[in-house]
């Protein structure tokens, strides 16, 4: 029972966020190695690693890399998703704050492999500190010739820009991120099969590789140590390691990097154990279905969590003990999605606000038993019919909470207060 550190291997080294220290610890050696490989060899190495996207969907990284056209008739772009808006998720923040050069190196390698000469890091507006660190690191990398024209004399060019978002969760959705970056309203764009994939027509209708901070940060160690080495960790389909942002009722909240397939209960122990009695875990950020304590005997990898009815998601691992009122908790979740709905499509725009109003009425004591089924039906009316994943993500947790904790809803509606609250606490 221990962490397995790949991405975090060096983060405790003082000064690793500066170029000198980073270089002394092997920083940019992967880039040098990659520049000596063919582009396809780099992609093949990523393929061999089995690396999957860490932004939430777990899509195999190499398929995107390989999907980028291999000619340069158009400009190509690499877009790093550093929006990290998923509630309960703060791993990208630490990766950028503490090891910025790892990400930059990963991006340059990605740029080299996909023929991109320009990269963007779209970082959420609230991340002013990580942005400052990154900006400094980018400057250092330019000065050292790791960015810019003719990198390390290889003839390869790669310019990197940092772009700050303006505080919208939806802008973490990759197509909305592209809209936002291009100066449009932060709303999503049509997806395949309604429009070409971003790898064909992304930013400014040019081929664009979009990956999460953690995904790109994995690249240097994969190149340095080989894809097979990376794939030797984790499970067959979920290779490598994963950082979980553990928050909530644990004694030592924080980011923990563990091998894929680590038992959930081990992660809880790593985080100092549960404060009080475990009620449930939300393992992948607020968007994924809640996992009641009795189902927590599960391994942390894409397949096992899916089998358990939830998802690995972003790794935003929220721990709830038995003092948590599920209805209140879900009201907060509903409020988040209603607030963050971009408004583009009918189901999410109207449905999320409606659900919030129902929750508010229930909490105010005005609930009706039929509201529970109404909530479920609203979830059905949103899920699968909305324009982008935000709508689905608004429906899933609420639906799962009713599935597992219907009695809490019924109790709250009947009594006007929660099953976990004493009557006195409410009336005072």
């Amino acid at each position, binding site marked *: 029972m221990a962490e397995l550190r790949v991405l975090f291997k060096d983060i405790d080294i003082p000064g690793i966020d500066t170029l000198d220290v980073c270089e002394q610890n092997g920083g940019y050696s992967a880039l040098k190695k990659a520049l000596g490989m063919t582009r396809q060899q780099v992609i093949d190495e990523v393929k061999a690693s089995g690396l999957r996207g860490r932004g939430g969907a777990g899509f195999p990284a190499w398929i995107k890399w390989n999907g980028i056209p291999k000619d340069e008739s158009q400009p190509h772009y690499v877009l790093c998703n550093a929006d990290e808006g998923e509630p309960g998720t703060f791993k990208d923040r630490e990766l950028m704050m503490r090891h910025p050069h790892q990400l930059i190196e990963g991006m340059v390698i990605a740029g080299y492999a996909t023929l991109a000469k320009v990269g963007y890091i779209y970082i959420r507006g609230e991340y002013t500190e990580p942005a400052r660190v990154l900006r400094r690191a980018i400057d250092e990398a330019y000065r050292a010739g790791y960015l810019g024209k003719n990198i390390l004399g290889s003839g390869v060019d790669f310019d990197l820009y940092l772009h700050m978002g303006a505080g*919208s969760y*939806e802008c973490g959705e990759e197509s909305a991120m592209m809209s936002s970056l291009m100066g449009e*309203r*932060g709303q999503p*764009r*049509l997806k395949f*099969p*309604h*429009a070409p994939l971003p790898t064909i027509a992304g930013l400014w209708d040019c081929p664009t590789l979009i990956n999460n901070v953690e995904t790109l940060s994995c690249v240097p160690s994969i190149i340095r140590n080989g894809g097979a080495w990376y794939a030797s960790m984790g499970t067959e389909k979920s290779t490598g390691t994963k950082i979980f942002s553990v928050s909530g009722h644990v004694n030592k909240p924080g980011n923990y990097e563990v091998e894929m397939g680590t038992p959930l209960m081990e992660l809880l122990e790593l985080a100092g154990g549960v404060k009080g009695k475990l009620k449930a875990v939300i393992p992948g950020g607020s968007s994924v279905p809640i996992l009641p304590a009795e189902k927590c005997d599960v391994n942390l990898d894409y397949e096992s969590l899916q089998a358990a009815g939830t998802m690995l998601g972003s790794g935003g691992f929220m721990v709830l003990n038995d003092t948590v009122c599920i209805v209140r908790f879900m009201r907060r979740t509903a409020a988040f999605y*209603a*607030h*963050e*709905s*971009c*408004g*583009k*499509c*009918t*189901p999410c*725009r*109207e*449905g*999320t*606000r*409606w659900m919030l*109003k*129902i929750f508010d*009425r229930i909490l105010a004591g005005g609930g009706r038993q039929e509201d529970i089924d*109404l909530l479920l*039906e609203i979830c*059905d*009316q949103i899920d*699968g*019919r*909305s*324009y982008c994943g935000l709508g689905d993500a608004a429906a899933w947790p609420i639906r799962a909470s009713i599935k597992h904790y219907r009695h809490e809803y019924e109790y709250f509606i009947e009594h006007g207060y929660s099953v976990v609250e004493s009557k006195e606490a409410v009336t005072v």
Partner: protein
Amino acid sequence: MAEQELVTIEINGIELQVPKGEMIIESAKRVGVDIPFFCYHPRLGKGQAANCRMCLVEAGTKQPDGSVRMMPKPQTSCSLPASQGLVVYTDTVAIQKARRGILEFLLINHPLDCPVCDRGGECPLQNNTLFYGPGVTRYVEDKRHLPKAFPISDYVVLDRERCIHCARCTRFSQEISGDAQLEFLKRGADMMVSTFQDTEFTSCFSGNTIELCPVGALTSRRYRFRARPWDMKSQKSVCTRCSNGCNIWLDYRPKRLVRVLGRENEAVNEEWTCDRGKFGHEYINSDRRLLSPLVRQGEKFVTASWAEAYQVIASRIQQAVRAHGADSVGAIGGAHLSNEEAYLLQKLMRVAIGTNNLDHRLERNQLAGGDTLLTRFGVPFTQTAIADIERAKTVFIIGSELVDEQPIVFLRARKAWYRFGAKVIIAYPEVTETELRFDEPVVLRYREGTEPVLVAGLLHLVLSSAEAGSRADAVWNSVSVYTPERVAEETGVSLDALREAASLLGEGTVFLCGGRVRNHAEYPTLVRTLCRLVEVTGNAGRANGGLNILLPEVNSHGAADMGVLPDMLPGYAPVGDVGARQHLERLWNVSLPAQPGLSSQAMLERAAQGQMQVLYIVAEDIAQKYHDPALAQRALENAGFVVVQDLFLTETAQYADVVLPAASVAEKEGTFTNTERRVQRFWEALDSPSPDVKPDLNIFAELAVYLGKPIPVFSAEQVMEEIGKAFPAYADCHYDQMPPEGIRWQALTRVAESREKATQLT
């Protein structure tokens, strides 16, 4: 055109072939399957918005083994392109449920003020709810409340509570009109349509958003509460506010026009109109319309019968002809008449009175069917069809505030750029509204008046980059002195901009020339150089290229075609051309004056010196609109006798001795010829405001009777048949055979040919 690739798809079990990439919502129509929608609009967007989610269908793809792999989620058919083997179900239980869900969502915050909403009765939200919606709502919370009936311009009212956020209006303003004046504010359920910081919605295409809005969120201030769709009738018409000839619907109640809607014509306006068109026909309803003839008695007008009025006019004309000759009489006007009326006006002047003193031109330059264009290209003013502009590779806008001068031509030019990636060059002395609607066009900011130098300089650049042997010496010699350096110096345009513009002038360049070209002091030189530039760049014979001198008024083109010109007979036959004259003499059974008459300018100058006995001003307020109003006013004051025929007691009419009340476009039928030579019919909708208001056609015919030289006229249709004989380009324009998009008359291969043909016909 390249053959379109077809794919086989299946909709509700029916197999069909459709063009690859066609949106399924369109394919479904082919098999009679209706898919409800709100946000979809085939003219909006490079891709569709797909935001209302009303058009969901279940879709899958046929596998090699014949089974179908369904996609896990329903798909929006408005954005789902047809691909080989696509299988679609539009009416499954799941889809019916989905539609009910979407409508329930749309309705929870909808105010349901149908009884007081202008959209009621023609509202997609009402209709879709009726057919696909839930019967009752489960919503017990407060509805969203937002400002209602919020005027955002003189024309448009915004009701934010009614908005269903379909983004049609915002997409129109970004993609079609390009002014981007409407956008969404905020997000989620707080999202609302707005202008920038609630400033006025000044787009000159704002009316289209009213028609696009699928609910009553954007309504017309002019139409608000004036009628319900079921108590109006509609008649097809053509807008008269500029020379583009947009197709419109006149919606009317007895004796009242209540609104104007865009009418589809792919060849002209697609379905758009500008605000002048949409809101600029209210004058028809005015209670200041003339209701009977007026005859001057001293300082005052008194109403008169038509017989009295005709008698006064006829005797004054006859007197003038007897005492001073027929050339002491002249007529100005015609650009606002129908073709039939314009034709009759010239016949009245030439046949019944015996003078060529007639002219429809009020601008400073009085172009006679652009001689150069006609002899070189066989067209008087414009080569390119409006619809072909969108296929241009380069659009070159010269001396025109196109948005304002030719709104619908502008929309095509913008479409060429926005949808199809054409390059745009804009030459104008000042910053124009037009250039702001394109991203980074090549701007040639020349010094006022230096258009000829600029164009010569571009020709010079184009020629000098061509192979030396391939250029005609004469052409080269005409511009060899216009070196880029000199042109840059004289016009103030940078060398880089000149070179960039010249490099874009290849095959497929459409030249759109506006008022500053039309009225340039050195127009003949300018237009000659333009013609050469068009030829040298290989655009003389191309559909998606060519020279276009855009015209000012609704029927400027038709009036010129009809020979409302002092020196040209119908069909641009010079008055002095014996053959042409004889052809018409035979047709009309008269002998025609052989001397060219006076232009508007000459007539007015003469009149100002007291040398015109009779001025007949038809449907033009020359006292205000003539390019030199002071001259027009002096002329009106000093002419012996002034007849004004109009809808209103205009400023010009104040000078009249007799005023004749004419019918508006809505009260008569006929044809107009738009700036691209398209002859289009319009129909009668309303009764005239008084029995004593007559169409101009009748007035000319009756006046001829009083002049003792009857011109028998039974209908506009019959006049058109005669026009076809006088000017064979119109020979196909039979009323009963006119295609809905009208007839664009063919370029004359040789001008003489038209006359030969004409001679044969008679």
